[in-house]
């Protein structure tokens, strides 16, 4: 393998990772508070989860294409689309985590004279952490895969190799994008699994 290829793999991997990290950071920053707010409102919750579910079923290539007229081509559009995909697992796992905390424990906390906010921060969120981190993990791994499509709208990343390989009928070029993307996904999975274990309250 030549030097130029290696350095291109490295720079596109970095670009890829950047897209993913920005998308996951924004999706987490939106998804966590949204989920917390939704645990307090059952009716709105069904609507929101339904909407997120539908957003998830839109084929990613179509979504990227759909956003181009509004957001133009490039990184911003890609990040917006990736965020939408990452939002659902984060939202759903945070909800499941908080709502899954034993009601008897929350009731005890209230009965001891903890305020709603104290119960949220000291009891519900710590006990929901494993589920929340699992959501971020699922979102990250799938986003690393989906982000390859970002190249179609000029956002760069490892998808550049894949699309180039397809248009040149060159399998090796496809693999130059696909293999590093798969390795990134595996590495992210490992790292986040480790974080999940470390943060587990039990």
């Amino acid at each position: 393998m030549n030097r130029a290829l290696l350095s291109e793999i490295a720079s596109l991997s970095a670009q890829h990772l950047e897209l993913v990290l920005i998308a996951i950071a924004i999706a987490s920053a939106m998804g966590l508070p949204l989920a917390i707010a939704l645990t307090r409102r059952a009716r709105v919750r069904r609507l929101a989860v339904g909407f997120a579910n539908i957003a998830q079923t839109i084929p990613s290539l179509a979504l990227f294409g759909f956003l181009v007229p509004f957001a133009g081509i490039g990184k911003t559009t890609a990040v917006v689309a990736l965020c939408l995909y990452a939002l659902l697992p984060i939202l759903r796992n945070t909800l499941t985590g908080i709502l899954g905390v034993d009601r008897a424990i929350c009731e005890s906390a209230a009965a001891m004279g903890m305020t709603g906010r104290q119960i949220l921060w000291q009891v519900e969120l710590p006990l929901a952490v494993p589920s929340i981190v699992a959501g971020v993990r699922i979102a990250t791994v799938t986003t690393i895969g989906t982000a390859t499509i970002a190249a179609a709208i000029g956002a760069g990343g490892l998808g550049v190799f894949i699309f180039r390989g397809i248009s040149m009928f060159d399998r090796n070029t496809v693999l130059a994008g696909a293999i590093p993307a798969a390795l990134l996904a595996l590495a992210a999975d490992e790292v986040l699994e480790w974080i999940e274990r470390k943060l587990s309250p039990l």
Partner: protein
Amino acid sequence: MVYHRKVPAPALLEICDVSYAIGGRPVLRGVSLTVGEGETLVLLGRSGSGKTTLLKCVNGLVRPDAGEIRFEGRTIAREELIRSRRRMGYVIQDGGLFPHWTVEANVGLVPRLEGWAPEKVAGRVEELLRLVGLDPAEYRARYPRQLSGGQKQRVGIARALAAGPPLLLLDEPFAALDPITRYELQRQFLELRRQLGTAALFVTHDVREALMMATRIALLRDGAVELVATPEQFRAAQGAEARAFLAGLEGG
């Protein structure tokens, strides 16, 4: 402590004509009861008689549809709720301990909420663990999952007593324990009550436990109070529901 009592002295807890329904089905029908200082009032009844719901009305986990609850002479309203709850210890069947906190953090909860200095909280935790028969050095740093059922319940009681509340609310606290441990804890609870003089509202479906723990027994049936009696009076009661409970005693 010196009490300057007016006559008649207001009871520590007054439950006045409390009613509550879920989806049109009445759970409590006009319940009126009082708990005096240092008294243990046992709520005895079958499953579904409304005893747990009544207990939850007292600490505001359930909001009654009608009636009033006064604690320390004050109506329990929204803004008073947090203050009142910190003056009522609460113990439930499996202890309700926070699984992600150590024994020390669990027991020290209400004192911390009340803003006690950390050294004072630590001292209090030690005192309470001794009081419920757990060696602080051995148990302080443990998590609930590292405790037996009886030990969890001891910690639950220590937590409820931590800030020195005048009233304890207990919801079948010993029901899930094996008979030997249960008897041990019942005896110890009586001893604690004698030492501390804490009043208690104690929910149970076990007539033996009711007779052992109570200064007075309130028998609940279908959400209404059927009888309020001392244990001696209760043993001699003629009502059908009281006889049904007492019949359970004769076997063993």
